[in-house]
Structures are given as C-alpha cells and as structure tokens.
C-alpha cells in the first residue's frame, strides 16, 4: 500500500470528522434543545423543547441570563409545568426557573447566583410545599441542607402558592395563596 493512499486517507478522515462536527453543530444551533442560542424559534420546527435530563439548573440559569429576565418563577414541578412565563399577566421579562423535584433551597441558590451576576429580580413567584414527602416522620427539612438567609437588598416580594395536601398524597391541591416578604 503506497504512502500516498495513507495520506489521502488521513486527509479524508480529517474532512469527514470536520464535516460531521459542523453538521452536528448546525443541527444543535438550529434545534437549540436547551434554548441557549435563540437563533430561530419557530412553532412546528423548534419551539417545543425536550425536558433536559442533565444540567437542568445550569441550563435554566444560562437561559435566564441570556434573555435578561427580571421576573422569576421558582419552585418544583408544579411551577415548572404550571406557570407560563409568557403569560400576559406577567407582562414580559419573566423566566420559569422551576425544577421538578427540587425545593426552596435550590430556588434560593438560583436567585443568589443571578444576584451575583448583577441581576436584580423585580418579582419572584415561588411555589412552596410545606410538606416534604421525602422526609421521614419527625425529620426536619433543615437537616438536609442548612437554610440560607435572604441577602440584604433583596427587594423582591415572594408570592407563595401553598398546596395542601401534598402531591404525594395524590389529592387535588386546594387553591390557596399568600405573600411572604423576605427581609430587605
């Protein structure tokens, strides 16, 4: 086998890898499965996004940062699938940071991170469950993660949507709403 044929093979192999990677990159930018690029957003093409399996929090925070949102919806799956950030009620600039299976600690972490980037939320709507089905009877939620105190200058009002009884009990939630104001 001549050396030329091996050289040609190496050249074609490099081109095939490059072409393959460019093709994949193009499809990813177009499909934009995590809503990170926003080049095209067309119903029937790429408007509907799959639920990410990994790095859900990071993807949401990156999306919130990119869109320049100042109103945030935080909480668990009820917020994630139950609130529409594009609702005219919110008047735009809203982003749904809700994550299925997470609690208030994750929400506080999200807001702290956004604050570290200089984003000052004008409104935060938080879904809060007062019963944690994952805890053993008598166990306190704070034992899993220390509570994080609200930072000074957090001017946001927390509109909390209380649900009782919890989802684990498979009962329809009662409509109940209250407003919790954090320390400024």
């Amino acid at each position, binding site marked *: 086998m001549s050396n030329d044929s091996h*050289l040609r*093979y190496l050249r*074609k192999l490099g081109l*095939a890898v490059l*072409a*393959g990677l460019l093709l994949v990159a193009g499809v990813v930018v177009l499909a934009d499965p995590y809503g990170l690029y926003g080049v095209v957003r067309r119903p029937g093409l790429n408007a509907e996004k799959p639920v990410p399996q990994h790095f859900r929090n990071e*993807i949401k925070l990156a999306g919130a940062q990119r869109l320049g949102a100042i109103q945030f919806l935080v909480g668990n799956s009820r917020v994630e699938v139950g609130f529409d950030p594009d609702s005219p009620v919110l008047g735009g600039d809203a982003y749904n940071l809700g994550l299925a299976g997470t609690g208030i600690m994750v929400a506080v972490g999200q807001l702290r991170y956004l604050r570290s980037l200089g984003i000052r939320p004008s409104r935060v709507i938080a879904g809060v469950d007062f019963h944690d089905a994952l805890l053993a009877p008598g166990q306190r939620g704070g034992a899993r993660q220390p509570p994080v105190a609200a930072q000074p200058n957090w001017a946001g009002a927390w509109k909390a949507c209380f649900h009782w009884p919890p989802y684990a009990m498979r009962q329809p939630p009662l409509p109940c709403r209250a407003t919790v104001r954090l320390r400024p």
Partner: protein
Amino acid sequence: MPQFADPRNAQPRADNFSVGITIFIIGLGKKTLLADTLAPYANALFAAPGEPTLLVAWGGVLAYAFQLYFDFSGYSDMAIGLSRMFGVHLPLNFNSPYKSRNIVEFWRRWHMTLSRFLRDYLYIPLGGNRHGAARAKVNLMVTMLLGGLWHGASWNFVLWGGLHGAYLVLAHVWQVLKARLGWQGGSRAGAFVAWALTFIAVAYAWVFFRAADLPSALRIVAGMSGQYGVALPDAIGARLGGLHEALASLGIKWTLGGATQFIETWCWVAVAALVAFWAPNTQQIMHRFEPALDHDGTAAPARLAWLPAPRQALATGMLAVFCLLALSRPSEFLYFQF
C-alpha cells in the same frame, strides 16, 4: 524496546498514522459508545441488588460483562493505536475472548498480557506441569488465586480467581477424559454448547469481581439461578395480550414499574452481544497492516477488513464524531463556567 531504536520510527509516517488513528478511534468507540452506555445498567443492579429476579439479575450481569470487555479492550486498542502512530507495535491484549469455546481458550484471549505474566512469573516458577498432573492443577489453582488477588485486596477477587482456577482445573480434567473416551466432538451443536457454557461460567464469575461485598454477590448469583423467581414489568405484560396469562401460568410474576430500565438494559445488552459475538475484532479489521506485535499475519482477512480508502475514511470519521459527542456524558458542563 528495539522499536524505539529503529531509524524508520524516527520520522512520522503516514501509514503508521492512518493505521494508528483508526485503531485508536475503534477503541474510543468501544469505550464511549458501548462500555459507558452499558455502565448505568450494570450499576443499577450492583449498587442495590436486593433480591433480583432472574431476568433482572442476568440483565445487570451481562451489562457488566460487556461493559468490562469493551472498556478494557477499548483502552487497550487506544494504547495500541497511539503507539502505532509513532511506529511502535504493542502486544495484543484481547482477542474476542467471549467467542471462546472453553475456559483455557478464554484465558488465551482475555487480558493476554496478564495471562502471559501469570504463566511466566507464577505458574512456571511454581513448577508448571513438570511435576505431574496433580501438582500442575495445584499450581494452576495457586496461580489463579494470586491472579485474583492481583486485581485488588478483597475476598471477592480471591473468590473470582478461585472460581477461574476451578474452571481451568475442570477444563483440563475434561480434556483428559475426552481423550480417554476418544470423543472428538466438533459438531456445531457441541461447539455452541461449549461456547454457551464457557460464557455462562465467565458471567457467574464476574459477579464476584464486580459486587461490592460477598452477600451482594451471593444474592445476585442466587437471582441468576432463579432463586427469586422470574418477573417482568407489568407495563410489558399489559402489551402481551393473551401471552400474559400463559406466562403467568408458568409462574412468571409481574412487577410494578421498571419497564424502561428493563427494556433499555436488554436492548443494550443485545447490541453489545452482537458486536462481541458476531463482529470481527480490531486486529481482524486491521489484519492487513500488522496492528499488533504478536498479530497472526497468516490468518485470513476478516469481514470489514480495513483499507486506506475513502469509504473507510468516511466510516471511521463518523465513528469519531459519535465518540466525540459521547464524550460530553461525563459530569463536566463546559458551557456553564461558574
């Protein structure tokens, strides 16, 4: 290493690079596309074995058996390929061990460099077969027990080595018995039974190699032997129509949930089995270009034999792209630099 002193290796050569990079990409594919994909299905069983039913136990153990093979042989291919790019031929380490028809053949094909080390530095110094058949079997057993211990300081590894030692002793006894009985074998059914028996024995031994502790290993072995019954996820049962009742009458139970995990495990095990049992291995694919130091150049070229041609460049390039995409699975997320 006289290869380092070879003046032909002082200059980069296109043939070494094309052969080496192709072997490397095949190895990377084994690791990232097969082994890493199988890992979660094996981990699901071994992390919390409980009392696994027959198909769950076998699904997890087979996932591990193939994960280990593709992981280790993938790394070996990558090492062989990288060295070859610089003109250095490394020895083979795997030669389709799961195609073996007896356990002696398995150890000639699995982790070949270790097998040679154990033979040259343990078995032969212990006396090998120079002091009679009985002493040879004792030497074999000691070698395999120490070989097991070489993998780690755990009784599980000792048990694994002991099992393989016992398999090897039995295989030698069987060969003697076969010769005395004048039984030639050679039928296709006989070859199939020999292969299946070898593979099943190896799979049972892998349980002790992988399990976190002895009680877990024993529960998995019990599950593989049917001690905890046979069960299928009810989501599968609901789609079986009349077969559902027939299977239930045979004693098959139905479990709540776990259908996705069950189906994915067995689908990936099937894919891995096809590659391991049917596909030619790396050195067979690269047969024409002396892929390794101890490569048998007289063997007939395999299916999918490689040539530095455009079609192979495209196929290898696509494989490399899939491998690169699969590399994103580890827990680093580069986009989000906190």
